[in-house]
């Protein structure tokens, strides 16, 4: 078994109003110095040894993210 993390983020050129709302709220809450926030998704997958990197790539690209508007990164974090 291994834990795999997939992080999905809106592409840099895509407007992220949720991230902007968080960024705009921080000064009001007394937190200074945060110039930008981007909001994405974080997936943790428990996979067995039969799942190879190519399969993980297909899961991330074909299902967990929408490549039209999102980028993804796949990481194996423990084995």
């Amino acid at each position, binding site marked *: 078994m291994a834990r795999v993390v997939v992080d999905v983020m*809106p592409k840099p050129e*895509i*407007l992220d*109003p*949720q991230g902007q709302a968080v960024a705009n709220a921080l000064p009001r809450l007394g937190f200074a110095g945060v110039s930008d926030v981007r909001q994405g998704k974080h997936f943790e997958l428990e996979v067995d040894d039969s799942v190879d990197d190519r399969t993980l790539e297909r899961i991330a690209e074909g299902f*967990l993210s*929408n490549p*039209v*508007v999102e980028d993804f990164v796949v990481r194996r974090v423990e084995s």
Partner: protein
Amino acid sequence: MKVGVITFPGTLDDVDAARAVRLAGAEPVALWHGDADLRGVEAVVVPGGFSYGDYLRAGAIARFAPVMGEVVAAARRGMPVLGICNGFQVLCEAGLLPGALLRNAGLHFVCRDQTLRVERTSTAWTGSYEQGVEIVIPVKNMDGRFTASKSTVDELEGEGRVVFRYVGGNPNGSVGDIAGICSTDGRVVGLMPHPEHAVDALTGPSADGLGIFRSVLGSVPA
């Protein structure tokens, strides 16, 4: 003419869509997400709602439903397919239409009567309108901001594949005020606003939406 209306878990507007099909003079046929069977229909409406709770992304799970495999195959053969709101999101996720629908720029769920301009009448779903006519139908969504790469938007505009455009205020920040688009052959159309909620004056702001369902009657050989 038989027009299929798909129901997924979480679909909301299948009943209104079926009613609109009936008022337009066609026979609505209920299609179930779990059945890989189009039951002999000649066109398909993918209605609005929150299929699979919008989990992961709006439309991301519905596109893998057994019925969608049949819809994609039929659309590739030229069957008219209309995606409304969540149905539009499903068609984009399924690759039948380009681009994606993201969270409204204002972060609010927007529900109001919306003016649209019909930009293209040579599609399976807009043939009964006059070019450039303005219609008023409801818009109601959270994730309605049409987004695509610049090259895709340029292609849509250049090929005249923007079918509907918002007039009098863009409700969600869609690029180019785009409310609806079509496939290269004009047989697959998706739009965020809801024509099925504007098919008679008693229950809608107008009957302007009925023309979409009437149009498809003339789009397939008798």
